[in-house]
């Protein structure tokens, strides 16, 4: 493939991926409102369009027309840059996430991934750790006590749970032997005894999966770990002083992070795009994508379900849980996995 074709294909993939991701972010907000509404025995959005499906459009228009107030006491450069940083890093991690097999279009072999890097998993971890800056700088630059406390709490929480997150992923790494996300998914192909798929959750990483899930909920500041942005606690935490489009950017960043976490959970523990494949060639190319999207949807639903069901942790309980329980458990998981793999080899 010549360099020009490669660049063209990559640009097309980037445009499609960004468009799909931003639409998914908008509609995951809709999904959350509907599901939490039904959990709380009410309807959720129903007025704007059938089933309230045009609600995200209405919200977008609302955010565009809202007054974009910049309070006079903020530290302007960082106040404006913080939501940008949050959104940029939330949207960048889609670059290494594979959604399907290699398809052949017009004679070109195109992997369904913007770029397959050898160290894809490390890149996702790196982008997650850089995302802490958006929160910390937003909290500090707003020059308000609620924001500062919320920002500090949120970033301390994110940094603490990053450790357990990373350690839980090492178990997967040891089992598949590569950092590349495509290679990790491909090592989960095939079946045991003909019908149990060889996904990482069935080959011993169940503890790792639960550690990953809990650490990811804390990373993305979602209930039960959302004390830094809970209204009854700190007004609105680090985004108290933000209005209109800047607030919408924080919102988008949070939901994009949720989607990234759901994608990673599918790829690393649930076999990615593996699923029953049948039918003609066009169906064979599209079915893996369908299975991937279905699994990501299940994870988003679980995220929202947990949000509607559990109460939130107090901050000291949260930090104690991360350092005193999750971290030793993740290390124990790592040791056991390494032992099993070493003995088997």
């Amino acid at each position: 493939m010549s360099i020009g074709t490669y660049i063209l294909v990559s640009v097309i993939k980037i445009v499609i991926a960004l468009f799909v991701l931003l639409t998914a972010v908008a509609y995951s907000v809709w999904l959350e409102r509907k599901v939490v509404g039904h959990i709380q025995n009410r309807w959720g959005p129903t007025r704007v369009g059938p089933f309230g499906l045009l609600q995200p459009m209405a919200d977008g228009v609302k955010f565009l027309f809202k007054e974009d107030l910049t309070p006079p006491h903020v530290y302007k450069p960082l106040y404006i840059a913080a939501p940008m940083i949050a959104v940029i890093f939330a949207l960048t991690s889609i670059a290494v996430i594979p959604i399907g097999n290699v398809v052949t279009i017009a004679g070109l072999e195109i992997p369904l991934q913007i770029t397959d890097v050898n160290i894809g998993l490390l890149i996702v971890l790196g982008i997650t750790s850089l995302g802490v800056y958006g929160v910390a700088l937003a909290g500090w630059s707003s020059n308000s006590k609620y924001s500062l406390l919320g920002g500090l709490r949120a970033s301390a929480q994110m940094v603490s749970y990053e450790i357990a997150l990373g350690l839980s992923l090492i178990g997967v790494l040891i089992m598949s032997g590569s950092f590349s996300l495509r290679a990790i998914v491909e090592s989960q192909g095939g079946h045991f005894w003909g019908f149990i798929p060889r996904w990482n959750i069935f080959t011993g990483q169940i503890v790792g999966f639960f550690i990953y899930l809990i650490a990811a909920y804390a990373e993305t500041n979602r209930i039960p770990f959302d004390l830094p942005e809970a209204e009854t606690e700190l007004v609105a935490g680090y985004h108290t002083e933000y209005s209109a489009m800047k607030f919408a950017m924080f919102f988008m960043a949070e939901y994009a992070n949720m989607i990234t976490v759901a994608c990673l959970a599918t790829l690393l523990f649930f076999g990615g795009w593996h699923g029953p494949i049948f039918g003609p060639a066009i169906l064979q190319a599209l079915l893996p994508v369908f299975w991937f999207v279905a699994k990501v949807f299940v994870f988003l639903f679980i995220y929202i379900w947990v949000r509607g069901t559990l109460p939130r942790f107090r901050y000291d309980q949260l930090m104690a849980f991360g350092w005193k329980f999750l971290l030793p458990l993740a290390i124990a998981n790592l040791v056991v996995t390494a032992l099993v793999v070493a003995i088997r080899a």
Partner: protein
Amino acid sequence: MLHLVLFSVFGLICVAGAVNLLAQRHPINSALSLVVVMGALSAEYLLLGAEFVAAVQVIVYAGAIMVLFVFVIMLLNAGVEERTGGSRVALLFGVPGMLIGSLLVAWVLLHRSGTEAVSIGALPGPPRIIGWLLFHDFLLPFEVTSILVLIAIMGAVVLAAKPPSAAPPKREG
């Protein structure tokens, strides 16, 4: 050619970030410039082919250590640096001196034999090789480093612990 362009771009970003770090008056701007320097260094490692080191540079340096720097600056509420007038002499002698010094170093390095430019990806460092080195050739330094980190953690805990409280005041009868 491509290698020279990419190297120069990231090198310039790195140096610009470093100069900005010194030139900024507010410490938070300096800390963020340092993050830019770390990012540019990571790109330079990637150009050499050391992908694992590049990723770890971002994760550890830019994503954890610099976050802690930013925390400290936020918590200490360090204000804007005040301008003192004593830096004119430093400016007069320092800037030319630094330029001459760096030109000297560059001249010496370029005229040694055995140093030539490497192409992109010339020094590959896949994680597998690094893991092998860490656990075979460099096992002792690796283990000793973990003990050093443990000592540092203990020191931090001791420094941050509350001093033992004085005896409670006696109540008057």
